[in-house]
């Protein structure tokens, strides 16, 4: 199936000087046609174009331009050499994507044409995403294995440990944890063998705690004067 443009009267759009861009995974197509500086998006099975609603019939997308309505039709068994699309172009309802991706009409004048208007941001955004992905992806297989010699390895290890020592010593107490518990006794068995607290102390504690509990339970609020006082307004 091929693609071409036609208007309401089924006249073929002069797309010989236009080109079609697609997105690898997108469902939208951007079209730039010479003479018509506006860009619009085609959505194979749903979408909007320039704020106007589209009606999508099977294999047909109606695209609104400022200059009128143009339809994007998929013809059975045809070719559209002007657009550089071939029969291998898949344009069924769900899959008008990969084969139309980044097809460009071979036109030197439009090789580097950047579309104006808000649609240009999409293209730049796409490019940015592409470059970002390329930068972020690390190709492990392409990394060459650089093996270090023994002396170089030892030198580096020494260098790193001195640097670490400098950092830890310069930061001082900031990095240190709180003071640890004291060492304690050297003879724990001697300490554990001593007598526990005396019975007198146990009784003192019991009495003191009980009395304190009862004293706390007797805490009462004493009402001395009102909190809210009316002012005398003459």
């Amino acid at each position, binding site marked *: 199936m091929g693609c071409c443009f036609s208007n309401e009267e089924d006249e073929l759009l002069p797309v010989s000087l236009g080109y079609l861009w697609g997105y690898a995974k997108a469902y939208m197509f951007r079209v730039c046609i010479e003479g018509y500086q506006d860009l619009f998006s085609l959505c194979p099975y749903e979408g909007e174009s320039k704020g106007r609603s589209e009606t999508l019939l099977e294999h047909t997308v109606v695209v609104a331009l400022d200059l009128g309505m143009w339809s994007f039709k998929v013809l059975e068994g045809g070719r559209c050499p002007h657009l550089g699309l071939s029969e291998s172009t898949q344009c069924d309802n769900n899959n008008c994507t990969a084969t139309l991706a980044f097809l460009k009409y071979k036109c030197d004048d439009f090789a580097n044409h950047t579309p104006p208007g808000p649609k240009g941001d999409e293209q730049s955004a796409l490019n940015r995403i592409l470059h970002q992905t390329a930068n972020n992806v690390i190709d492990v297989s392409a990394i060459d294995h650089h093996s270090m010699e023994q002396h170089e390895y030892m030198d580096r290890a020494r260098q790193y440990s001195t640097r670490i020592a400098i950092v830890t010593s310069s930061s001082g107490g900031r990095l240190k944890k709180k003071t640890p518990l004291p060492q304690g006794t050297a003879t724990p068995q001697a300490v554990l063998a001593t007598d*526990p*607290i005396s019975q007198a*102390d*146990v009784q*003192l*504690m*019991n009495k*003191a*705690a*009980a*009395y*304190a*509990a009862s*004293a*706390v*339970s*007797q*805490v*009462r*609020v*004493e009402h001395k004067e009102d909190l809210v006082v009316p002012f005398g307004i003459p």
Partner: protein
Amino acid sequence: MEKELDKHLEETMNTHGVLGTLCADQHGLCLGAKGSVSTDAAGMVTRLSELAGQLDPSSEEDPIVCIESDASTLMIKKHDDVTMAIHKAKVPT
């Protein structure tokens, strides 16, 4: 309204050998402190007595926690919602 508690702490201080005393509620709020025991210790004292109580949950009585040093002992006991701590000098034997 805390007169009674204050009086009690004062009486405890007058006991022979007591260096300091502290009383805290169940949340660690210091209700009163006298002598060598600082008010800052209230929270820790409360928590210590709580943890000690967990050692034997089946026991009906709250334990007495003793922190001993060479010269003195800090004794902590919980009763109902109040925790009492007494810092007592060790009697030389």
